[in-house]
């Protein structure tokens, strides 16, 4: 029990990803600064675009009609695509190969020769990715705050904080899906591709169901349905049921991962 609390594998996982964490953080800080900072130049053009009905061609995105407001612009340009989709893909890609990588490169052999349980390996890998999520998440939030103040736009910082607080269980759910994929597959390529495909497929389903009212029920199957960044950012409406969905995903994925990995034969190929 003493060893479980020491989190040595988690710390090692963090150390191994500190470069990636910095790169992703810088990337999102830079993109956030760019999009938020660009808004004043775009505002008029966007208003004009919406008045001519051009905005309809964006109706696969939620709240496309709000594009000309600062909150709407941030939601559409930053949160809907880069945050909820692209960052999810990037994290999934990294986490999805975390255990697969050890199996494929056979380092799992020597790791498991230590007095560590299989459960501990899976659980600590998950824990090891949490700092990455927190650092990217809150750096991005601080950047939005800074740029907003700099360009003199109005944004409710309390609501902004809520967006980034809800983002934590959202990304942890993504990570837990990644862990599940990484215990199931033995090849890095496979698990990484699957972790790109899952968020994309969900995003696609979400878009289709937005455009086709008949297919609206499909939205419940996508993770995006449970996190409306515009609602949170504009009105402070947090979808509490959505947070429970994320927590449920985390619990289910981790439990299945632990059980699956416990019973898996670690083969040499």
């Amino acid at each position, binding site marked *: 029990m003493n060893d479980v609390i020491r989190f040595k594998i988690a710390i090692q996982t963090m150390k191994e990803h500190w470069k990636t964490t910095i790169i992703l953080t810088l990337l999102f800080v830079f993109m956030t600064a760019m999009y938020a900072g660009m808004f004043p130049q775009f505002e008029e053009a966007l208003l004009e675009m919406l008045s001519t009905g051009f905005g309809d061609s964006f109706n696969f995105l939620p709240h496309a009609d709000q594009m000309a407001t600062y909150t709407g612009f941030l939601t559409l340009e930053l949160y809907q695509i880069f945050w909820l989709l692209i960052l999810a893909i990037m994290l999934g890609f990294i986490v999805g190969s975390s255990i697969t990588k050890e199996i494929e490169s056979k*380092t799992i052999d*020597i790791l498991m*020769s230590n007095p*560590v349980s299989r459960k501990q390996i899976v659980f600590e890998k998950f824990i090891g990715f949490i700092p990455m999520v927190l650092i990217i998440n809150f750096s991005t939030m601080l950047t939005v705050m800074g740029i907003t103040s700099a360009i003199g736009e109005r944004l409710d910082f309390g609501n902004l904080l809520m967006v980034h607080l809800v983002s934590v269980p959202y990304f942890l759910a993504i990570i837990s899906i990644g862990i599940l994929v990484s215990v199931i597959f033995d090849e890095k390529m496979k698990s990484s591709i699957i972790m790109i495909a899952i968020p994309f497929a969900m995003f696609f389903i979400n878009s289709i169901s937005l455009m086709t009212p008949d297919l609206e029920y499909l939205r419940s199957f996508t993770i995006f349905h449970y996190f409306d960044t515009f609602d949170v950012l504009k009105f402070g409406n947090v979808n509490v049921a959505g947070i429970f969905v994320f927590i449920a995903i985390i619990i289910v994925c981790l439990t299945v991962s632990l059980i699956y990995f416990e019973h898996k034969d670690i083969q*040499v190929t």
Partner: protein
Amino acid sequence: MNIIETKNLTKYYGKIKGIENLTFSVKKGEIFGFLGPNGAGKTTTIRTLLGYLHPTSGEAFIFGKNIADNENIVEIKREVGYIPGDLNIYTHMTGKEFLDYFASLRNTKMTLLDDLLKVFDVPLHRKIKGYSKGMKQKIGIIQAFMDDPEIVIMDEPTSGLDPLLQQKFYDFLKNQKKKGKTVFFSSHVLSEVDKVCDRIGIIRNGELVALEEIEALKDKMGKKVRIKIKEKPETFKGHKNIKFNHGWIEFVSTDNIDNLIKKLSKFTIIDLEIIDFSLEDIFIHYYEGQT
């Protein structure tokens, strides 16, 4: 006391047999050699013992604890060192980072680390990516022995070591044995098994075909006798599987030496050779007819 004990241990990969009905034990303080060519089931046995593979049937115990229990296997590994056959170490770490990481996972005193580093010197501050095969093997040995575990299980540990280091390694193993530590290693290098092992198990097609002390096994195999006699070779009888080879008569005798000499004395002997079986001969004997 038995450190390792298996009872009808069996592992199938689907329909493919890995090992079948292995029953053997390794006693405390002995060096046990596990012999067999590639694909015989040596690695499967080791990986099953260490809980990497789940046995299809049968049981195995280390320190009397059943390896099938996931709680046990963690406890067992506190006192087990392991060197995998296909040793792969985190290439992005330096030697020191790797050893520190593993020391932190073991969470005990690294009593042998300094001694090991003297014998098997490795460039600790270089990334493992830049290590040669021999260096990797050395650091593999260091990590397995550094906390002086009760038993070290090794899968062909000397591959990649030069003869000088191999000798140092054998000396190190003998020293561990003197301290009452146990060593289990698989090999297909017969000379090394002959040099350091007390007892061997020979595995063929996943099944154990011999399990004995090396000396006892050699005695049991008998002696190779080559003899030249003045009489016609064809008149020589009374032994099984006699071969005639350029005037030499060759056969294997399990008789005691006195009986053998008395039987031979009926002939006029020109030349005589009595040779002990080597481990290699024994090995070939068990594998005869195998491809």
